[in-house]
């Protein structure tokens, strides 16, 4: 799949933002006044910034409002609803914390649940696609959710929780790689089933339908990003998890080190998200004798 920067940015940042909102919603931490203001600004900047970035890959962003209509069948539509509901509930909760020094915990818990629901709906947009066997796995929502909660814990200053959850997220991410590498071959879809000619002999793509490139090849058969897969996996693990965890263990209460840990984590998750797209093989590539 083509790793569009807008979608990588969106899923990375908004995942983190909604993760932080979830922690704030359940009152861990439970700041008021200016401290609460700073926390919520960071969370909203990440969550909303990510959502805005995602509209850049639309052909007609001016019609985006129509995406709210098909929640009965479409995960993308459900995501739109969940995101708006989460931001609304957490917005009210934030007003209470910032301006009135109150923690309206029912609102907070509801907002936290909706925040995680938003991350889940995002992950289901990818998980539902049978055409991309690497994503069509329960590991995909597990990976999105664990990264969101783990990264959120890091931002929320929940050190013990962050240590446990980031380790868990790293393990799930590694599992998506190991399982994902076999997903296409295990899916049973091959050039033989794609053409229906498999029973007659070995099928080989002889001549493509066009001499140049096209939308399908650009969007679905992105091979450049896969070349440095192993290096990027190591970078994602070191920046996303090893360095932040080491910093948390060595100096748990230094603010500037925590900032480095957060930035490093974001860079690592973005690298892993690049791979999430670049390494995903769409079955349409088989028609071109590619993957």
């Amino acid at each position, binding site marked *: 799949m083509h790793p569009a920067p807008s979608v990588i940015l969106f899923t990375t940042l908004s995942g983190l933002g909604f993760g932080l909102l979830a922690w704030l919603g359940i009152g861990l931490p439970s700041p008021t006044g200016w401290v609460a203001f700073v926390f919520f600004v960071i969370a909203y900047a990440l969550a909303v910034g990510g959502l805005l970035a995602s509209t850049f890959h639309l052909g007609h962003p001016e019609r985006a409002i129509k995406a709210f209509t098909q929640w009965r069948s479409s995960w993308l539509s459900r995501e739109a609803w969940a995101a708006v509901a989460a931001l609304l509930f957490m917005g009210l909760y934030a007003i209470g914390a910032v301006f009135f020094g109150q923690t309206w915990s029912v609102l907070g818990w509801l907002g936290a649940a909706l925040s995680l629901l938003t991350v889940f709906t995002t992950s289901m947009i990818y998980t539902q696609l049978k055409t991309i066997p690497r994503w069509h796995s329960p590991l995909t929502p597990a990976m999105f959710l664990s990264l969101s909660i783990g990264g959120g814990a890091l931002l929320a200053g929940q050190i013990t929780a962050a240590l446990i959850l980031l380790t868990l997220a790293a393990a799930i991410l590694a599992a998506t790689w190991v399982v994902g590498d076999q997903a296409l071959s295990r899916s049973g879809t091959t050039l033989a089933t794609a053409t229906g*000619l498999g029973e007659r002999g070995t099928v080989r793509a002889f001549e493509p339908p066009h001499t140049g490139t096209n939308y399908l090849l650009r969007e679905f058969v992105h091979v450049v990003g896969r070349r440095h897969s192993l290096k990027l996996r190591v970078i994602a693990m070191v920046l996303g998890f090893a360095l932040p965890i080491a910093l948390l263990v060595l100096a748990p209460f230094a603010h500037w080190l925590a900032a480095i840990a957060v930035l490093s984590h974001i860079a690592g998750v973005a690298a892993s998200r690049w791979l999430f797209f670049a390494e995903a093989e769409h079955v349409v590539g088989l028609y071109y004798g590619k993957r």
Partner: protein
Amino acid sequence: MTQLPEKTDRKLGLVIDLDTCVGCHACVISCKGWNTENYGAPLGDTDPYGADPVGAFLNRVHSYEVQPEQGAAQLVHFPKSCLHCEDAPCVTVCPTGASYKRTEDGIVLVNESDCIGCGLCAWACPYGAREMDPVEKVMKKCTLCVDRIYNENLPEEDRQPACVRTCPSGARHFGDLGDPESDVSILVAERGGIDLMPEQGTKPVNKYLPPRPKDEAPEFDVLGPYLAPVAQEGTGFVAWLDKTLSKI
């Protein structure tokens, strides 16, 4: 509405005969022509006369080599367009309701004024049947020439998809695959028509007729024994050259 209809009154679709397709790409060109001048946004191209031309097409012809365990390889030309699946994954993923499957005839269409160009339907299609228009930024797909098949301003013989009408080898057939008595259904039954990627669970309406088995060339001609065998060993200069070169 992106929920799929429980059942459609008819199942209009194509039957493509891989035995007779000669790979001339005439269907590709007539499709591009008709769908650039008629229904919806024209099929766009970028840099059409330059070094890197790219354009949206609704129908493309691949060619495959099939090598059986024994015997000669066979070349199969393979036209591919939207299969108007009964369980169309491209429809249900659409967030805006732009993608839909018609209850009356099962045609899968895109309402272009509702399309936000997110591309998710193309991601969900295993067949590569949908392409984003590079100019209009909306999703384009085969309409089964919905603006021809019901068009009473056209002579009756033209009321079929442009690709079917133009095919010079009769490799494309159009009809109601939901009616077991229709010509196309009978053709599919007789020739053992197949689904593409059945394991994807899309239940495609379009069917493909597999190539017929090739005639086997007899190993010996009846006159064979009377013919002089082809020389395996040269004589004279050729024999000397062969021997000398072999030694080097």
